[in-house]
């Protein structure tokens, strides 16, 4: 597939990002380094919890989404990074052996007056699990180089 530039995104377009299976080892490894709370390490010992059992750190789910969008289209694009995330919601826990799938929908494209070599694409991204639950969604802008800037 040809490398994607700003011009290749159209409002309403839905980009599939493939799928990814999550292992308990991966959940625990991420948690041990970044989010060592009992629910993410598999050592919950009673207490009053909202969710029982081993679940992935919310930020781990975000990082997994990032790997999916990289493989989906970002690594083969003129991506210049992102200034942030407007809204991010975690709606359902991710457990060992869940298979996540994701897609990105283009909700807005605009050029930059101050930087004519780039454009801004706003997306809504959704991550679902194997039973169709929405696990996480977010809306954010990503900066992309423009085709004419690359060819000039």
């Amino acid at each position, binding site marked *: 597939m040809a490398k994607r530039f700003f011009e290749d995104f159209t409002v309403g377009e839905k980009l599939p990002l493939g799928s990814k299976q999550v292992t308990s080892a991966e959940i625990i490894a*991420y948690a041990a*380094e*970044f*989010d*060592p*709370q009992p*629910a993410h390490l598999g050592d919950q010992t009673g*207490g*009053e*919890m*909202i*969710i029982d059992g081993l*679940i992935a*750190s*919310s*930020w781990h789910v*975000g*990082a*997994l989404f*990032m*790997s999916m969008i*990289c493989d989906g289209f*970002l*690594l083969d694009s003129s*991506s*210049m*990074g*992102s*200034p*942030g*995330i*407007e*809204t*991010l*919601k*975690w709606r359902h*826990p991710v457990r060992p052996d869940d298979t996540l799938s994701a897609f990105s929908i283009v909700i807005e494209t605009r050029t930059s007056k101050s930087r004519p070599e*780039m454009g801004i694409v706003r997306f809504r991204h959704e991550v679902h699990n194997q039973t169709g639950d929405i696990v996480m969604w977010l809306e954010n802008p990503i*900066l992309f180089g423009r085709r004419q800037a690359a060819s000039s």
Partner: protein
Amino acid sequence: MTTYEHIAIGDSFECGSHRFSAEEIKRFAKLYDQQVFHTDEVAAKETLLGALCASGWHTAAIMMKLFVKRLADENEKVKARGKAAPALGPSLGVDDLRWLKPVFVDDEIAFSAQIVGKRESESRPGWGIVSIKSSGLNQKGEPVFACTGHIFVAKIETD
């Protein structure tokens, strides 16, 4: 941090700092975010960001790491006073997450957190939802990261 009842809007606390090494930046990127500005020092120079820098998800992960550490330290103090440490529930989400400046190799980012909102959960009795603004400043005092997260906190002390 204590139970929901003891948290006051406006409370703020330092969470400590973290230096991002090149090795660590590339290790995180290899797993989760292989854009060239996170994986390759030479190629990164040709990009908008200008040099190798941490994935935004890496910066967020370190924010969480230091926040959890700070909370654990606080809970130890609560336990030392003979009280049960409060339960922290899941995160609902974050708003206005901003990667304000790149986090470059060997930048040292100091994170802090401030309570900006609290409300009782309508769906889960016994729990409140606390909104916390997290901020990260680099060694020059420049803001590099901000977000406002919403987390369940137990209203009653649990054992």
